[in-house]
């Protein structure tokens, strides 16, 4: 259990806690060196190639290969936009906030490199409204980058123009979903769009658009600096490089830890986060944000590697946004499921019927069950209602009757209750085992 953090994206903010977010602090630790070099070389395709070689996958939740996403942009159609997803609304995820507050120049540099690679001259950052400090520091960073010539017209004499606009969200989780985010940026009510068309073809203002997460973009300078192949040597299988995990819950040292992919959950929870409070046992944990299904404190689960495909294929869970929420053996899983459902019911955008009505219904049933008002038939009811939102979720592979994955997210905890705590729950609602 002697795993170490592998700090790449979080290097600067750890090295210069006193001024990592300032232009001076950033420049002193190498910021914009890569950007300068990229412009000097003047080859967008080469950048794309490095990203492809690196195997980088999106850090926003879905884990989609970044270079592949860029390649969907239709050739020859301009303008095209880069939209930075800084909405970070997934409960217990708090890595992007740290990156924006404490290393905004790294993000700006990443935005610049990505924009150059895809041929975008205007990038938008959609920042979670609550990030007051992050907003202040990011806008300052953009202003400083502009005055240093890293942004604006004819960046560093390269002939390339780039500007970055920061937009603050208004407190809706759904606005982290990329098409709802685009709607919101356009001034509309934040509700996901029907796909197709995909944003790469018709996104912001009906123009080709790439949406990337803050951490994804913050990784780019390092990939270009190290070289894609070198970066791909980090990590495991198709989960290359490092990722920041936000560990929270009943651990002794909650926080953000950047590790090389492939280390185990045990490394994270017991190594870096210091184990469980009062040295109790792990009852279960949520491996990838509130939307994910759960894993238990079993050795098998704790020793599973942080490999996106492995956990997906083996346990049907996802690393998602990299938020690991740990619950000790005093925890009532019904109460957790209810609280998560309450979140999703509150945040459902209301666009599609199964999610709008179903999340609320599930929340109400779970409330009763968690508060001693459960009935024997409630468990089957829950599964069936869940199945109507996310057919097959209890017996994967699951699909969805909804427009976006928010609705099915509420079913994740139900499926987990079903899989791991069926007896406990049955006992609570009066079904004799």
């Amino acid at each position, binding site marked *: 259990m002697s795993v170490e953090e592998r700090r790449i994206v979080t290097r600067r903010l750890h090295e210069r806690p006193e001024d990592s977010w300032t232009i001076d602090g950033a420049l002193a630790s190498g910021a914009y060196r890569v950007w300068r070099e990229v412009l000097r070389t003047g080859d967008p395709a080469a950048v794309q190639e490095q990203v492809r070689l690196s195997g980088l996958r999106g850090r926003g939740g879905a884990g989609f290969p970044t270079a592949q996403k860029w390649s969907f942009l239709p050739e020859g159609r301009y303008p095209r936009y880069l939209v930075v997803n800084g909405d970070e609304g997934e409960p217990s995820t708090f890595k992007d906030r740290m990156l924006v507050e404490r290393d905004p120049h790294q993000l700006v540099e990443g935005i610049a490199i990505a924009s150059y690679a895809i041929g975008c001259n205007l990038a938008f950052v959609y920042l979670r409204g609550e990030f007051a400090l992050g907003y202040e520091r990011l806008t300052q960073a953009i202003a400083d980058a502009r005055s240093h010539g890293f942004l604006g017209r004819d960046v560093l004499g390269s002939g390339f123009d780039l500007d970055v606009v920061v937009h603050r969200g208004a407190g809706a989780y759904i606005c982290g979903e990329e098409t709802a985010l685009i709607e919101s940026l356009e001034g509309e009510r934040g509700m996901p769009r029907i796909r197709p068309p995909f944003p790469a073809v018709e996104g912001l203002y009906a123009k080709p658009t790439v949406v990337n997460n803050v951490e994804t973009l913050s990784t780019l300078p390092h990939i270009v600096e190290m070289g894609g192949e070198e970066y791909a040597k980090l990590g495991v299988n198709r989960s290359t490089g490092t990722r920041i995990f936000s560990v929270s819950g009943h651990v002794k040292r909650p926080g953000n830890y950047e590790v090389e992919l492939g280390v185990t959950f045990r490394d994270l929870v017991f190594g870096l986060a210091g184990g469980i409070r009062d040295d109790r046992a792990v009852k279960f944990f949520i491996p990838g944000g509130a939307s994910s299904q759960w894993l238990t404190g079993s050795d098998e689960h704790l020793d599973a590697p942080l490999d996106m495909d492995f956990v997906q294929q083996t346990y049907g869970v996802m690393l998602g946004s990299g938020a690991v929420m740990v619950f000790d053996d005093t925890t009532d899983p019904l109460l957790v499921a209810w609280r998560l459902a309450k979140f999703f019911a509150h*945040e459902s955008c209301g666009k599609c019927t199964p999610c709008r009505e179903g*999340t*609320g219904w599930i929340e*109400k049933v779970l409330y*009763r069950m968690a508060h001693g008002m459960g009935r024997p038939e409630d468990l089957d*009811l829950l599964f069936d*209602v869940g199945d*109507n939102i996310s057919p097959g979720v209890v017996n994967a592979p699951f699909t969805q009757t909804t427009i976006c994955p928010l609705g099915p997210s509420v079913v994740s905890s139900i499926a987990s209750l079903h899989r791991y705590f069926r007896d406990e729950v049955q006992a609570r609602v009066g079904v004799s085992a």
Partner: protein
Amino acid sequence: MKPVGMCRMCLVEVEGVRGFPPACTTPVTDGMVVRTRTDAVEKIQEGVLEFLLINHPLDCPVCDRGGECPLQDQTLAFGPGESRFVEEKRHYEKPIPLSNMILLDRERCIQCARCTRFAEEIAGDPLIDFVSRGDRTQVLNFAEQPFESYFSGNTVQICPVGALLARHYRFKARPWDLATAETSCTTCSVHCRGAVQSSSNRIVRLLGVDLDPVNHGWLCDKGRYGIDWVHADDRVREPHLRVGGELREVSWPEALDAAAGEIRKVLRMHGPGAIAVLGGARGTNEDAYAWARLAKGVIGTDHVDCQMGDGLPAEVVLGVRRAEIDDCDRAGAIVVLGPDPREEVPVLFLRLRRAAKDLGVPLFDCTPVGGSLAPYAAHVARRVPGEPVGADVVELAARTARERGGPLVVVAGRPSVAEAPDATVRSIAAFGALDGVDVRVLSALRRGNVHGALEMGLAPGFLPGRVTLDAGREWFTQRWGGVPAGRGLDADGILRAAAEGRVHVLVLLGADPLLDHPDALLARRALEGVPFVVAVDAFRSESAARADVFLPCTVWGEQNGTVTNLEGRVQRVARRVAPEGTAMDDWRIASELAYRLGADFDLATVDEVTDEIAAVAPAALGATAALVRRARDGVVLPLREHLGEIVVRTRGLSILAEEGAGTSWDPIRAGGAAPAGAPAASGEPAPRTRRRRPVPARTRRRPRTRSSTRTPRASAPPTRPRCTSGTVRQAGPPRPRVTRTLCAS
């Protein structure tokens, strides 16, 4: 409206596609295999239905929609018998006003976004939107900004549940008690298709019906909710006669005898020129025709005008090459001279907005003051009131139309009654003079059936069927026994003559010159100067109150017949309720008076009037009652199928604006009539050349022999109209409502 895929009722399985895509947002592709009835799909549909119901109040017994509710229908067909939802449903105050006409019961809303999409996409009034999230998602108007849209009533109609309610109709009826008749709205000249519904002999609702070439199913609020007046307390329900200075209720024979007696007296003492008829734009074509025949064929006066000095000269409206509304969709360019269509002909505004905004047709806003179309206009060229459109604008519009291909549609009405029609007329002439462009004019005259009335000859210098007095003299003399000798006065002239004491009997056909004529003082002097006024009206308007004989007529909803819209499209209006009191159809009043003046029109039913028009009025040739009844989209005159016949049957008599003739009121000018736009010529019509000996007076009507008795002898026997399906769509059985989806419309 664009599909939103919100309700999720239409999820299906598509071979080769993972999951369950919504049918409503999935474009069909070649060779696609769609499964709509698999177990998985059915479970989903039942699941979605259950979701829709868990928070639904199920207060169907007190819901306006109960009985015609898609949600209710689907629940009955596919829904669960019992609810698995034991929690408390969501509650809201029931209902809240969105405007002073529209109420919203948020508990019943299923969040399908039909209303919000309509308001934004179709009407361009995004005054309602979703508020809040999750199962608290609700439709609301914005603070301090009510949902005041001219088209708000459409949202009530398309709301699939009883969430949106019309204050007007709320709790008035249950759907199964309603009797329905398909008809057209005649509040303005667009003639949107609708279904008028009554309960216990009271009209309670007008719904839009999808007539593809006209209204796309929409109505404006003026038309939809302006129906209460039919049963208003102040309807005049019985005939009245002025006795000792006071209007007294009398029997119909007394009233008719009094009117006919006065007319006969004046005819004898002063000649036909002392009798004038104003109005007639409110009734049916049959009403207008019978009155034209009475005035021009029996009495012999040409002082007849259905407009009130607030329209355009008849020769322009009848003489130009007409556009159909659909022409706007495929136009090379659209020029709007005025008025603001949203104010005067509201649903035409929706069509113009769609053409400009959604179909990309360049629209030139050339109204003097601008208005609702300006935001969608490619070019805004304000003209000075009273001045025609500048030559540069005409040229630019022509060039645009030529480049894009397609007709140049000129929308022309009267922008303002303070402005003489000359500027509009000269603008139309400028467009009409263009070479190499297919210029078509869409009349934007507002009054209900003004186009029908003009076509039926209720204008000086015209006879039914778009022929001038001179051109049609021989033909109509044969048909009617006589026509006026010369061109008569228009409304201005009639009022002036009346004020000077030269009109001895003034007939007001639903006309209220005191209110409607731009020169109210002149109207007052006219009514004071005329010794005898016959009012044929439903209400005692300020002008009608001056009547010596008041003949109460039927109104929309009580009448069968046909009307002609601004395109020249003839459609049926239907009687849904029995007339108030003893109110009589105008056409019948006209024939009764004619009979008392010695002429037997020999018309017993409104269909016989329609058929007589179809046989006698050149432009209406072939538009028989049977044909109009069969034609789902109505028929646009002149019927293409009969163009050749018109010439044959009327022996060379040509009608204005024949197909392909372009703007053609020139011939009238050449023929010596008043140039378009100039004040109507001459005061007194010349005495009639031949005193007509009408059909011998008979004490009893002859038994009906078939229409051949009224068919012009000189012409070929009427042939059954040959309809090519391309022109006349047959009315089919009512189109079934799609009941499996809720948010697609």
